[in-house]
């Protein structure tokens, strides 16, 4: 009997984790084809910042080398983009004109960096921080350009800024809010973080709204102009202000798309033959950008592809760490503080700050700075919705 055909669109972490899970569950069910835009095997995108910082090489962050695909009998189609899908005939078409039949299709198209549409946003010296090509470009450009402005004081922006700082570059982070990582940290932790990064040599323009990027010529920038009239001289701009789910293809083929591709709890799209996982999906109103939920989705999706459909994806609290060496930071759950009771521990001179958020005797959020060793425990408590009344007195001191 002929095997069914599975085509995976997107050779990123979410798609490939799904494949891995599937191979564990049902190694012989499908002939698998993976189509990816980047001309590599699959690598760990989260680890781009250590590569940028020179702490790791690209080889070290590769998850699945081309050999691996061969060994698993997976057809890897790299360097190509899927341009169309015929849902009636169940065929996928790439920009190279190749066509692949499928019985089941997995969309894992990920996301694209958001670029603020200000003047000169598409200048050659304005980069995003998404893939290994961006990293390589940065490393190349900064050989001879010493002043870099990173727009975006979130997780990605700070990791990029740190990486460049490690390469000996003069880095200024521009953030439109008064606090760094304002989606993951409360203001106190954010200020501690800023203080520590400043001590490392990073510079900041906080609460600064970028008006335009001013170019000298096609190959050189002059400065960034802010709305308040100030300027910042810079040779290179990196935009790290967020991502947008990559949904063009899904829209084009008529799948239901809101902000991203709508999926149900089994990660199935509007078309029962088509599944989707990762940053390109929208599940019960939520979008995803961290790796943990992607892996969860992959697991669920794999059970359905393997036809032992027992998995149901349930959103869980997420946790964030910042991969900046020397910075210990952890954030999980809901820390908006609204109606929450808080427990705070400060050892300011040791740069340690912890704040736990409690509602109805349950831990709902945690922000840790300087001492993160109990982050995982808090994360479990948050996810398990455990009543913490009995351990409240010792909670902030750790497990």
């Amino acid at each position, binding site marked *: 009997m002929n095997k069914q055909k599975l085509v995976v669109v997107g050779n990123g972490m979410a798609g490939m984790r799904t494949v891995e899970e599937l191979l564990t569950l049902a190694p012989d069910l499908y002939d698998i084809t993976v189509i990816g835009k980047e001309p590599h095997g699959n690598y*760990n995108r*989260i*680890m781009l910042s*250590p590569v940028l910082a020179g702490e*790791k090489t690209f080889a*070290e*962050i590769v*998850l699945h080398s081309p050999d691996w695909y061969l060994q698993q009998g997976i057809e890897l189609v790299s360097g190509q983009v899927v341009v169309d899908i015929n849902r009636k005939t169940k065929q996928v078409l790439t920009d190279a004109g190749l066509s692949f039949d499928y019985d089941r299709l997995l969309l894992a198209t990920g996301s694209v960096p958001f670029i603020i549409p200000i003047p000169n946003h598409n200048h050659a010296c304005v980069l995003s921080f998404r893939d290994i090509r961006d990293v390589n470009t940065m490393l190349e450009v900064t050989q001879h350009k010493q002043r870099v402005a990173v727009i975006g004081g979130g997780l990605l922006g700070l990791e990029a800024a740190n990486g460049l700082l490690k390469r000996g570059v003069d880095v200024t982070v521009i953030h439109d809010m008064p606090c760094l990582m304002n989606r993951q940290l409360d203001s106190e932790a954010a200020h501690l973080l800023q203080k520590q990064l400043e001590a490392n040599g990073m510079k900041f323009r906080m609460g600064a709204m970028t008006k335009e990027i001013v170019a000298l010529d096609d190959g050189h920038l002059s400065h960034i102009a802010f709305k308040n009239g100030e300027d910042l001289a810079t040779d290179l701009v990196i935009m790290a202000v967020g991502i947008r789910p990559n949904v063009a293809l899904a829209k084009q083929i008529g799948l239901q798309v809101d902000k991203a591709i709508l999926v149900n709890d089994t990660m199935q799209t509007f078309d029962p033959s088509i599944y989707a996982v990762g940053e390109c999906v929208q599940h019960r109103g939520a979008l995803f950008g961290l*790796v*943990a939920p992607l*892996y969860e989705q992959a697991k669920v999706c794999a059970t359905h592809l393997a036809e032992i459909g027992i998995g149901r994806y349930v959103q869980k609290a997420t*946790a964030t*760490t910042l*991969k900046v060496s020397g910075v*210990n930071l*952890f954030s999980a759950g809901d820390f908006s503080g609204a109606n929450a*009771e*808080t*427990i*705070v*521990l*400060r*050892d*300011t*001179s*040791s740069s*340690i700050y912890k704040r736990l958020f*409690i509602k109805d005797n349950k831990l709902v959020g945690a922000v*840790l700075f300087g*001492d*993160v*060793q*109990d*982050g*995982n425990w808090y*994360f479990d408590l948050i996810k398990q919705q455990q009543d913490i009344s009995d351990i*409240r*007195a*010792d909670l*902030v*001191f*750790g*497990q």
Partner: protein
Amino acid sequence: MQINSTVHTTCAYCGVGCGIKATVEDTDKRIVSIQGDTEHPANYGRLCSKGSSLGETISLEGRLLEPHIAGQNVSWPTAIDKVANEFKRIIAEHGKESVAFYVSGQILTEDYYVANKLMKGYIGTANIDTNSRLCMSSAVAGHKRAFGADTVPANYDDFDHANLIVLVGSNTAWCHPIIFQRIKAIKAQRPELRIVVVDPRETATNEIADLHLPIKAGMDVLLFNALLVQLAERNALDPQYIAQYTVDFEKAFAAANQDVGDKSTLAERIGVDSQSLATFFDWFCQTPKTMTCFSMGVNQSSAGTDKVNAIINCHLATGRVGKEGASPFSLTGQPNAMGGREVGGLANMLAAHMDIENPVHRERVQRFWQSPVIADKSGLKAVDLFDAMYEGKIKAVWIMATNPVVSLPNADKVRAALEKCELVVVSDCITDTDTTRLADVLLPSLGWGEKDGTVTNSERRISRQRGFLPAPAQAKPDWWALSQVAQAMGFDGFDYQSPADVFNEHIALSAFENDANIESGLRDFNLVGLGQLNTQQYNALQPIQWPVLNKDQGTARLFAQGQFYTPNRLARFMPLTSRAPKNPLSAEYPFILNTGRIRDQWHTMTRTGLTPRLLQHIGEPYAELHPNDAKKLAIQAGDLVEINSAWGKAVVRAQLSDGQRQGSVFVPMHWTGVLTRQSRVGAVVNPAVDPVSGQPENKHTPIKVSKFNSAWHGYLLSHTPLTLPECDYAVAIRLEKGWRYELAHHQKPHDWLDWASIWLQQPQGQRLEYQDISAGQQRYAWLEGDKLSALAFFGAEANLPPRAWLMSLLNQPLDKLSRRALLSGKPADPNADVGRIICACYGVGEKTIERAIATNNLKSVTEIGKCLKAGTNCGSCQPELQKILSRLISVVQA
């Protein structure tokens, strides 16, 4: 004093009077090592916690070193003139009854002798009383009624011979630890020795008890009346002894019989089960060698003297008096209460066991002293004396070595009395006490280890207490200060040059016309056998029990063959009727307050409070309640409780114990207004006294108890002493490396950190903070360098984090783990050291990983991931996990 010379002396504390060998290791630094004196018959080398800590309490910290007038340092001549002139002026204006001395069982016999002589023979009033009034005056009165003199018939050797020891109203284990240890050791050797403890409370003494009679407070007379009746009914009397040596047995028996009444309800009235009561009667009836030892539970009562006589009646009736292993035995509280009794230090005594009411005695003493006058009637006893001061009748008082603002009943009134008094002179070795705070003139006394003289213990044994440290600064012996003032007042007879001069006069007076052939002559107290001592002989004086009738020969026991000191030489049975404590319980005040000592503290803690070692066992004032009472009052262990009587209130920590009688509450007597804000239990105690002895009823005050409502509880730790914070409840506790302050208050501060900083004297350095505002928790710690210098913990409830570990960290460098756990108050689990973080996603550290590999025998990165989650999110740490794994596995394989 030479370095490393060893001096034989005696302990500063209780009436056991233990011998001590003190070796000065460094005179300048006042480093002295303390050992029990193996040759001293009171203790044969043993020492209790208090005595063995004496070396830690002789620093000059807090010492009064110069005379003060109105808070200013002055010279001795100025101070002496001031005291002498003011006493003279007040006597001239208001008469001799307007002045008083209030002295103490802590001063030496020589000091006592001179004080008594000055007051009774020269000023001419008997307004000299002593804190011994609070201690054993009922025993004195009981002895005098029965024996005709204040004579303790027994001694400690009797414990070796006794087959039954009855401990009445005595927590011997804590209050006379060396006697307790001695009895315990004897019992270990002779298990047939039976011990009965008669006490409403179950105390530490119960450890050795074969039988505990938890009688209702105040039922002692009924118990021993019932025993007397039993003895008669069972033919356990000693008819020959009764007939030959005593009078009034029939009267006593008749009174007892009537008092006992309906026997079927007897046990219930006493408050014990009938089986226990029967056992006690059986044992007492069957055991000729019976000792009945009694202490404050008997004496501190409005029927204290009757209680003493009820006990003595039973011993007279069985002839068990002054016989080997058979005697009543008063265990006195203070180191020199007995010495004070010998020189007439009480307002109703004269000197050398002569009576103030006896004109022959008065004439004899005056003639001996060649004094201008002699007091002709009893003076005011302690409680009355301070009442008279409150009423303005006493206008000048000289207080020595005692702290009546803490220790007397109705202590707030005592404070008010001293505030009203025109002239308050206080001789002490400590600058800041509740009493010195009210003094107009402060005179610096010698402390233990400096002063030199004699003391007498519970078994009539006179021992030398010897100095081994030089007098610091201007501190002087009390006998010297008294003599100087006497001379400045224009009196002869006070030109003593040494304590030996005083002691020789004391010997001479004891022997003066002390002869059965002289009318009203024969007295029990006689030291004639000591002769007159030169300095060398005085210094070499060995412990000896009075009377000393033949050369250097003491008297172990008295009265086995009668020869009492009544006019007819016969002992007197006392007819007794039991009566309830003076102030009955009421709906408003339904609980009985019972006060007493704890194991490691002495009196008002001016000395024992100096050593942290003695505060480790119990550091805070407390009230011990029965759990059932606590439940009804919604009080839990560790809560603060307010105890109120008609006289005053105190706030203390609740402790629960099944050993407490329901309806009774025990509170230790020790805590002061210097160490606490509102925990002086003396303020609560009723001023009822025994009509004969004048001893206050400290064991029975009607009180109400309620949970103390405070908005917060807290504690401070500081490596330097602080001003006691202004809180409803505040207690200062000395620690090894600083101080602890336990606090509670009805109102929250506006800003916790500000409040803590102010009372902690603005601590500098790094600050750690913990806040759980909803749970009412605020905690702060300050580090100077890496050393913990100050700490403040606050909470809504009394159950704050434990103190022990934090106290041990004070002024210590903190390691990382301790610093991390510091504000939890709980020592860090060694497993809390996770080491360097390897998996940043899940915060898993190197040491955690190593432990997991070892414990769970993990073999791969995947297994580590399953066990710890490490490496399962971003996976970037997997190479390091592999390295750790390889390293550990290679170690195992190697």
